[in-house]
């Protein structure tokens, strides 16, 4: 690769996946439109993860569903609204070159196998199984908190695809490392950590919870140290690549996550205040950092903090 290429020295390998750079779009952020994915790709995103897709379309909760709580942090209880497997496979049907991971959410093995059967013929990198959405009953975290269910679902997806599977874990009642171990033992290849954390906010004037679902998930700057800790502990204890996520808003945050052990890093809610061009800016800065440090490739820093 040419030294003038904007991704020179930034390429990373995550299991069987090759990415031109370690930046990814987190699930649920601008994640339902192929045209938007193409725009992000032009802005030099490494890969995108779609909104979590379920078997049937879901309308989600009424608004307010997403709110800023200041300081670069957010609360959301979107309620996993998504167009469902059939409409979404149509959405992605013309995809050729965009590196896309499809996020899956569901309550039973049957639902997951149905979705993977539909999606598997598309041009995609693989799957991210969402076992960590903290605000919808019988899905996400409620499944993630049940190791037996996790085991069965991951095995089912494994049986239906040869593509890489990442399992997205969060901070629930089961330790992330244990959950990650169950997922990898069941056949997952990668762990994504973390999702949002259960949280709420109340308006003191009206005395009412603001989110329509009352409780939602905290994301953004506030959760970054928790995400870094989870990535660190998972990568220390489990032999599988980790994708970091949570509170990333700058190139420095990406470096920090990689030093904790992440092979790639997702950007979520902070995209809002920066717009899609944040990927272009951040990858430029990452390239400069790698050059300044005299490294051949950015992956040299993955897990480097474990030495100390």
């Amino acid at each position, binding site marked *: 690769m040419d030294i003038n290429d904007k991704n020179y020295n930034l390429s990373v390998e995550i299991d069987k996946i090759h990415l031109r750079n370690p930046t990814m779009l987190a699930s649920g952020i601008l*994640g339902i439109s192929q045209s938007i994915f193409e725009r992000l790709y032009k802005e030099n995103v490494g890969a995108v993860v779609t909104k979590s897709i379920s078997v049937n379309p879901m309308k989600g909760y009424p*608004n307010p569903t997403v709110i*800023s709580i200041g300081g670069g942090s957010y609360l959301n209880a979107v309620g996993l*609204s998504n167009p469902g497997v059939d409409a979404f496979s149509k959405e992605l049907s013309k995809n050729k070159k965009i590196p896309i991971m499809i996020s899956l959410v569901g309550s039973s093995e049957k639902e997951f196998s149905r979705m993977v059967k539909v999606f598997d013929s598309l041009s995609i990198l693989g799957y991210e199984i969402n076992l960590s959405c903290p605000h919808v009953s019988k899905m996400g975290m409620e499944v993630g908190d049940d190791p037996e269910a996790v085991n069965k679902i991951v095995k089912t997806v494994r049986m239906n695809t040869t593509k890489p599977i990442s399992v997205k874990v969060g901070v629930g009642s089961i330790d992330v490392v244990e959950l990650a171990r169950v997922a990898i033992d069941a056949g997952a290849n990668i762990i994504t950590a973390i999702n949002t954390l259960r949280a709420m906010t109340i308006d003191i004037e009206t005395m*009412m919870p*603001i989110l329509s679902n009352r409780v939602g998930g905290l994301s953004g700057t506030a959760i970054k140290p928790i995400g870094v800790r989870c990535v660190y502990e998972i990568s220390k204890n489990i032999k599988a690549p980790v994708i970091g996520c949570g509170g990333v808003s700058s190139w420095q945050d990406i470096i920090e996550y990689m030093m904790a052990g992440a092979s790639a890093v997702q950007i979520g809610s902070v995209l*809002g*205040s920066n717009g899609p061009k944040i990927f272009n800016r951040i990858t430029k800065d990452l390239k400069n950092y790698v050059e300044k440090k005299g490294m051949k490739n950015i992956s040299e820093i993955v897990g480097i903090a474990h030495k100390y």
Partner: protein
Amino acid sequence: MPTNIDNRRIVRIEQTIVETPTVKTLVFKDSLSHTAKPGQFLMIWIPRIEEIPMSVMINSKDGYAAVTIRKSGVGSTALFERKTGDLVGLRGPYGNSYTLKKSYKKILIAGGGTGLVPLLRLASYAQKLKIQSTVIIGARTKGEVFFENIARKIIQDNDSSLKICTDDGSYGIRGTTVELMSKVLHENTFDCVFTCGPELMMRKVVDLSNENSIPVEASLERYMKCGIGICGSCCLDASLVCQDGTVFSGRQLSKMLDFGNSYRDKDGQRINYS
């Protein structure tokens, strides 16, 4: 005084104005909204019911603004039913705005219904910049014409520059906004056309302006959850109406497949206008 637009302000509705049996204007005090740019919107919280995007209506009193609601869905109906003294929350104003170039001398403003909200704010800004506005207000029938007096006041009561049309001819000139616009373009030249209203009307206004090589800008509406570029529910081709819009140029719009053709439902499925 709040300075961060993301901060939720709780405001009291100070006045309600009935525009038609299904359209109401609610007036409140909020300095950030008072100085909103034409085309920007607020996210209005109707506590424990909904939060919906609303274009910011002008109000002549310093520090005040308003929203004008047509009742249709759950959120807009709940907001429509709010009374003087009730509390609502708001954040914003968000989004870009119409561009008024200093070099403009004459502009054409064409819209209908609550689409007039950003257009009247635009007309009042144009007035301050000494740009002459011709305003076309279109409606299906007489009972649905509103804001005539406000429009007249803003463009300073020049009869020839305010033109009203109804589809059934019950008020003003008989015909559609686009038919009237086509006539107006024959008799006058304009530096730019500005439009807001039903999308199929805007599509025709944009096409007609493009055919006549007049710059045109339209303010669009899409279902919104976040209003701040995170959720993607407002996408229009590769653009986000909340962050890249609400205002798009004729050149941008003529390349879009969704414009005038389809929108996204609450679950993100693409639905065709038909």
